[in-house]
C-alpha cells in the first residue's frame, strides 16, 4: 500500500509540474519573450493577448506541451477521485497512466523542446498560423478536442488494469463508464465545433470533408461509442467483457494514431502541423502501445469470463450486438479510406486520394442503419420478445416515420437516401421521445405532480436513462440534419459588378461595394452584400478577405445568415482591387443550425450522465416501464 501512496504522489507531482510548465509558457508568450524558441516561432507583438495565449496550442511543440497539461489534469483528477476506491485495480491503472505521462514528458523534453533558448533572439515573431487567428472558435475547439483525445488515456488505464488483474467486476464498471463518458462528451462537442469552425471560417460551405485529420478524431469517437453500448450489455448480462475492454484499448490506440497523423507530416490536411522528429517518436510509442495491448489481450482476456449468456432472438440484446458490429464496421471503413492513399503510394508509387464519394457511399448506409437501430433497439424488450410484444413495440413508431417522410416530400426532398434517413429518423424520434416522456407522464398520473416536478423527479431517479435518451435525441437530430443539409442545398458561383443583383432561391443579393478595414494583426476587404427576401430587407451580409502580413494568399471569411430552416452562406472568391466586382459563392444550406443544436443536446446528455445519480434508494412503487429499462442501470 505504501507503493500505491507513492504512485498517487507521483501522479499529483506530474499534474503539478505540467500545470507549472504550461503557465510558464503562457507567461513567456504574453511577455513576448522571443529568447524562448517556441515564442520566437509563433509569438508576435502585433497579435492581441488572447491570440498570444491561444498560440500555446497553435504549433507543434506547444501542442505537445499542452497535451501534457491535459494529461496531467486528467491523471491528477482520476487518481484523486479514486484515491480510496478500487484498491485492487487503481495501482495498475495509475501505473499505466504514468507510463503514458512519462512518454509525453519525454516528448516535451526531447524532440519537442519548446523551451529551448535562442542565443540571439529576434525582436518580433511571425505570429501563429493566420487560420487560427480568424475565429474565436479556435480558442474553444482545440482544448475540447484535447480534453476528448487525451482523456481516453484514463479509460485505457482502467481497462488495462482490468486485464492486468484479470478481473472486471460490477463495481469497476462505474469508474470505467464515467471516465469514458467525460472524454467522449468532450470529443463529441469538439468534433462538431471543428465542423462549425470549418463552416464559419474556411468558406467552402460545408462542415465535414472526410479530411484525414477529421477522420482521426472520428475514429476513437466511433469505438468509444461502441464501447458504451457493449458496456451496457456487459452490465446487464455479464457478457462481452473482453470485447468491451478491446474497444476501450482500441479507442486509446486510435487517439495516438490521430496524434501521429496530425504531427508526422505523412498526411496532408488543413490541420497538419509541419514535419519533425516528433512524428517518428509518436510512431514508436504507437507501435509499443499496440504490442502492449495485443499482448495483454492475448494473455489475459480469457480470465474475463462471461457470467451469463445471450440467446439469439429479436430483442434489445441483439440490437446492441448489431449496433457494435455496425460501429466497428464504420470504424474500419473510415480507417481504410484514410490510410488507403498511403497503401497505394507505398506499393505502386503513385498518388491518389480517397474522396468524398467513397466515404459517402460507405458511411451513409451504415449511418442510416445505426439511426434505425437506435429506434428499434430501445423499442424492444430485453431477452426474448413475443410476437404480440414485438408488434406493440415496433409498429407505432411507423407513424412518425411516415410523418417525417411526408414532410420531407412536401418540402421537395427527392434524394432517396435522404428520404430513407427521414423515415428512420422519424421512427427513432418517436421511440426516443416516448422513452423520455413515458416515465414523466406516469409520474404525473400516479402522483398528481406537475410537469416540472415530474421531469425533475424522473431525471433525479433515472438520470442515466434520461441522459442516454437525450444523447439519442441529439444523435437523431444530428443525423437528419446531416442528411438534409448535405443533399438538399443550392449553390451558385457568380461574378457580380457593383450595384448588380443575383437571385438565389428566395433571396436577392445586391453587391454594394467594398470597405477596407485595418486591424492590428491583419488588413481586410469587406464586401457589402444587401440581402432581400421578396419585399423584406434583411440587411447586409459581409463576407470578407483577410490579409495577414505573414501570408501571401488572403484568407476569406464567409458571412452566414442562419435560420432554423436554412442558412444563407456567402463567401468571396475574389475581389478586384478597386472593389468594382467580386466573385461570389452563395449557398443555401438547409437545416445546418440543427446540427449545432443537436450537438448541444448530446453534450448536455453527456454532462447529465456524469452527474452522480440520486437513485440510491429508488422507490419500488415507481416501477419503470418495461421498455424504459433501456439505458438505465440495474443497480
Amino acid at each position, binding site marked *: 500500500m505504501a507503493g500505491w501512496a507513492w504512485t498517487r504522489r507521483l501522479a499529483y507531482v506530474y499534474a503539478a509540474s505540467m500545470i507549472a510548465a504550461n503557465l510558464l509558457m503562457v507567461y513567456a508568450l504574453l511577455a513576448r519573450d522571443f529568447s524562448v524558441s517556441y515564442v520566437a516561432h509563433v509569438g508576435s507583438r502585433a497579435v492581441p493577448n488572447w491570440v498570444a495565449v491561444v498560440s500555446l496550442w497553435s504549433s507543434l511543440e506547444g501542442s505537445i506541451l499542452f497535451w501534457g497539461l491535459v494529461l496531467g489534469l486528467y491523471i491528477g483528477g482520476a487518481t484523486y477521485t479514486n484515491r480510496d476506491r478500487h484498491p485492487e485495480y487503481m495501482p495498475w491503472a495509475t501505473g499505466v497512466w504514468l507510463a503514458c505521462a512519462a512518454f509525453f514528458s519525454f516528448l516535451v523534453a526531447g524532440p519537442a523542446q519548446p523551451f529551448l533558448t535562442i542565443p540571439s533572439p529576434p525582436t518580433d515573431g511571425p505570429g501563429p498560423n493566420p487560420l487560427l487567428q480568424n475565429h474565436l472558435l479556435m480558442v474553444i475547439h482545440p482544448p475540447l478536442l484535447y480534453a476528448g483525445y487525451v482523456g481516453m488515456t484514463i479509460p485505457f488505464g482502467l481497462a488495462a488494469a482490468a486485464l492486468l488483474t484479470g478481473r472486471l467486476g460490477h463495481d469497476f464498471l462505474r469508474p470505467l463508464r464515467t471516465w469514458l463518458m467525460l472524454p467522449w462528451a468532450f470529443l463529441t462537442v469538439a468534433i462538431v465545433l471543428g465542423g462549425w469552425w470549418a463552416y464559419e471560417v474556411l468558406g467552402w460551405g460545408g462542415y465535414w470533408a472526410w479530411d484525414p485529420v477529421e477522420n482521426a478524431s472520428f475514429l476513437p469517437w466511433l469505438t468509444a461509442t461502441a464501447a458504451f453500448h457493449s458496456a451496457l450489455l456487459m452490465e446487464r448480462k455479464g457478457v462481452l467483457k473482453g470485447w468491451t475492454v478491446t474497444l476501450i484499448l482500441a479507442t486509446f490506440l486510435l487517439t495516438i494514431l490521430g496524434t501521429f497523423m496530425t504531427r508526422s507530416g*505523412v498526411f496532408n490536411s488543413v490541420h497538419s502541423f509541419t514535419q519533425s522528429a516528433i512524428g517518428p517518436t509518436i*510512431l514508436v510509442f504507437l*507501435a509499443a502501445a499496440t504490442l502492449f*495491448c*495485443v499482448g495483454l489481450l492475448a494473455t489475459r*482476456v480469457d480470465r474475463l469470463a462471461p457470467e451469463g449468456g445471450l440467446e439469439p432472438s429479436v430483442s434489445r440484446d441483439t440490437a446492441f450486438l448489431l449496433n457494435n458490429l455496425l460501429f466497428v464496421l464504420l470504424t474500419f471503413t473510415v480507417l481504410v479510406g484514410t490510410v488507403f492513399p*498511403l497503401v497505394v503510394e*507505398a506499393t505502386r508509387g*503513385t*498518388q491518389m486520394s480517397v474522396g468524398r464519394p467513397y466515404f459517402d457511399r460507405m458511411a451513409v448506409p451504415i449511418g442510416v442503419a445505426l439511426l434505425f437501430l437506435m429506434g428499434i433497439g430501445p423499442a424492444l424488450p430485453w431477452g426474448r420478445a413475443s410476437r404480440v410484444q414485438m408488434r406493440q413495440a415496433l409498429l407505432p413508431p411507423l407513424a412518425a416515420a411516415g410523418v417525417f417522410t411526408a414532410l420531407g416530400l412536401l418540402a421537395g426532398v427527392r434524394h432517396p437516401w435522404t428520404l430513407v434517413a427521414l423515415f428512420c429518423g422519424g421512427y427513432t424520434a418517436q421511440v426516443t421521445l416516448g422513452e423520455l416522456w413515458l416515465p414523466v407522464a406516469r409520474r404525473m398520473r400516479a402522483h398528481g405532480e406537475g410537469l416540472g416536478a415530474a421531469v425533475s423527479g424522473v431525471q433525479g431517479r433515472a438520470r442515466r436513462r434520461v441522459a442516454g435518451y437525450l444523447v439519442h435525441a441529439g444523435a437523431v437530430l444530428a443525423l437528419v440534419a446531416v442528411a438534409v443539409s448535405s443533399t438538399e442545398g443550392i449553390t451558385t458561383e457568380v461574378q457580380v459588378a457593383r450595384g448588380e443583383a443575383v437571385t438565389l432561391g428566395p433571396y436577392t443579393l445586391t453587391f454594394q461595394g467594398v470597405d477596407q478595414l485595418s486591424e492590428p494583426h491583419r488588413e481586410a476587404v469587406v464586401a457589402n452584400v444587401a440581402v432581400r427576401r421578396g419585399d423584406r430587407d434583411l440587411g447586409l451580409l459581409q463576407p470578407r478577405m483577410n490579409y495577414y502580413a505573414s501570408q501571401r494568399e488572403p484568407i476569406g471569411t464567409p458571412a452566414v445568415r442562419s435560420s432554423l430552416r436554412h442558412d444563407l452562406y456567402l463567401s468571396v472568391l475574389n475581389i478586384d482591387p478597386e472593389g468594382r466586382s467580386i466573385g461570389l459563392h452563395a449557398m443555401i444550406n438547409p437545416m445546418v443550425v440543427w446540427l449545432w443544436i443537436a450537438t448541444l443536446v448530446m453534450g448536455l446528455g453527456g454532462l447529465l450522465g456524469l452527474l452522480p445519480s440520486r437513485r440510491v434508494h429508488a422507490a419500488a412503487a415507481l416501477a419503470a416501464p418495461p421498455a424504459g429499462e433501456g439505458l438505465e442501470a440495474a443497480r
Partner: protein
Amino acid sequence: MNRRVLVAGLAVTLPLVALLVVSLGRDPHRMDAPLVGRPAPPFALRPAGGGQPVTLESLRGRPVLVNFWATWCVPCFQEHPVLTAGSRRYPDVAFLGVVYEDEEPRVQRYLREQGGAYPSLMDDGGKTAIAYGVYGVPETYAIAPDGTIVDKHTGPLTDGRLRALVDKARIGAMVGQGSQ
C-alpha cells in the same frame, strides 16, 4: 495465452504500423507530374523586352529545359544563379524561362539586375503554365530532343539536380523507351 486473439490482433495492427513506418518520409505536398513521358505542350511566346516569338517546335532536335519562374518568388531568386551558370555550362541544351503571373517591366528590371543568360518568355494569360499544369513556381521541365517531357523538378534547383535534368533531357528518347 489466447492464440486467436494474438494472431487476430497482430493481423489487424501490424500492417497498419508497418504502413505508417514506410510512409514516414513521405512528403504530402509532393505532386505527381502526369506529363512526364508525354509530348510537351507546344507554345509560341514572345521574350520579355520584345523580339520574335520563340516556339518549342523550333527547338526540336535539341534538349530543352523550361523553367517557370516569377520575380516575386524567393526560391526562384535562389535558383537563378544555378540556371544562368548551367546555361553556359551546357551550351547544347536550350534553356527557356517562362514568366509566371508577373509584369513585363518588373521582369526586365530583374533580368537587368540579376543578369540573364537565356530568353525569358512572357506567358500572357498563363495559358502555357496551365498547359504544363504548373502548381507553383519554380518548376522546371526537362524536354528530350523528340519533344517528350522526361522529368520535372518542383522547387529551387541545385547544381546536382540541374545536371540530372540535363542528362535526362539529352538521352530522353532512350529513357522514354526504357520506361515503356
